[in-house]
């Protein structure tokens, strides 16, 4: 009986600790979702389904992360928001390089994309067939983040397509093409 603590009196506000989730859970979920969708459907259908899931998540995250921010004006400001605050919240770092051709194409480069960190990269200078195979595997893992980025951008008013290119694992470029 001595070990029992008295219940806090109703007048005292007990602050609940902030609940956190281990990051490995998210990594495992991403890996497993890719496997699941590719088992259930073949090739492009699985990719489209993953992208659709990412799209919805991107919309919801855009709502949450733009919540107390000042109004985002034009397309460039929205893209910069995605590169800085959104990327920071999602992938714990900002986009390393942003290039544009000023005609509606933006290239976001991330040298160390967090969701590709667990894929083993073939040693540089090894057999091109191996590198190509690794690239194909990486592409299947990139449908989900592409969907997230596209969902966030579309929800903020920028209608676009997003393609990913894993040039050198784990670095990756995302090409955003604004739809007229």
């Amino acid at each position, binding site marked *: 009986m001595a070990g029992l603590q008295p219940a806090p009196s109703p007048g005292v506000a007990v602050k609940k600790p902030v609940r956190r989730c281990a990051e490995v859970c998210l990594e495992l979920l991403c890996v497993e979702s890719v496997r699941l969708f590719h088992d259930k459907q073949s090739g492009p259908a699985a990719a489209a389904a993953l992208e659709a899931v990412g799209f*919805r998540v991107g919309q*919801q995250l855009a*709502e*949450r992360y733009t919540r107390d921010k*000042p109004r985002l004006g034009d397309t460039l400001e929205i893209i910069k928001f995605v590169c800085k605050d959104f990327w920071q919240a999602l992938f714990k770092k900002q986009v390393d390089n942003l290039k544009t051709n000023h005609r509606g194409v933006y290239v976001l480069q991330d040298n160390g994309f967090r969701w590709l960190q667990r894929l083993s990269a073939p040693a540089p200078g090894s057999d091109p067939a191996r590198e190509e195979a690794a690239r194909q595997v990486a592409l299947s893992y990139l449908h989900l983040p592409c969907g997230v980025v596209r969902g966030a951008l579309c929800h903020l*008013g920028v209608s676009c397509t997003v393609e990913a290119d894993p040039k050198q694992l784990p670095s990756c470029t995302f090409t955003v093409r604004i739809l007229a």
Partner: protein
Amino acid sequence: MGIACVAFIGPQNNPLYLRSMDPATDDQYMKLHYVVHCALDAVEEKVMLKRGPGDSQDAYLGLLYPTEDYRVYGFLTNTHVKIILLLDDEGPIKDEAVVRVFRRLHGLYVDTTSNPFHKFGLPIASTRFDTQLEQIVAVYPRPGASLGGFMT
């Protein structure tokens, strides 16, 4: 200050939620929809005006326009969702209080849309949303109003 009506409108000007804090007749319901619809034009005007350099790019749009029974306040989020608040005319209204209500409503909207079963673009049909909205509005009740109201 009393809150007569709360409305959420989506990016394509589609109504997501409209709740009045008064039990009502059919006429009332039409009238509130009409007032909120007119408010959308006022929102666009305000946004156009604020495009000038040096103007504060804030979500809170302030008083949009007064009608004979209500004062209409607006709030525009970054995802182009508009929150419209109809306050009745009694008494002085402090901007900070209205901003506080808007921020709480925005927080409620963000939490509701984070539900994986929520579909964007469709009207919000969640009892939890209703009860939490009532709690936010209960801080500024209309004199003599019930908390039921009607919802469309």
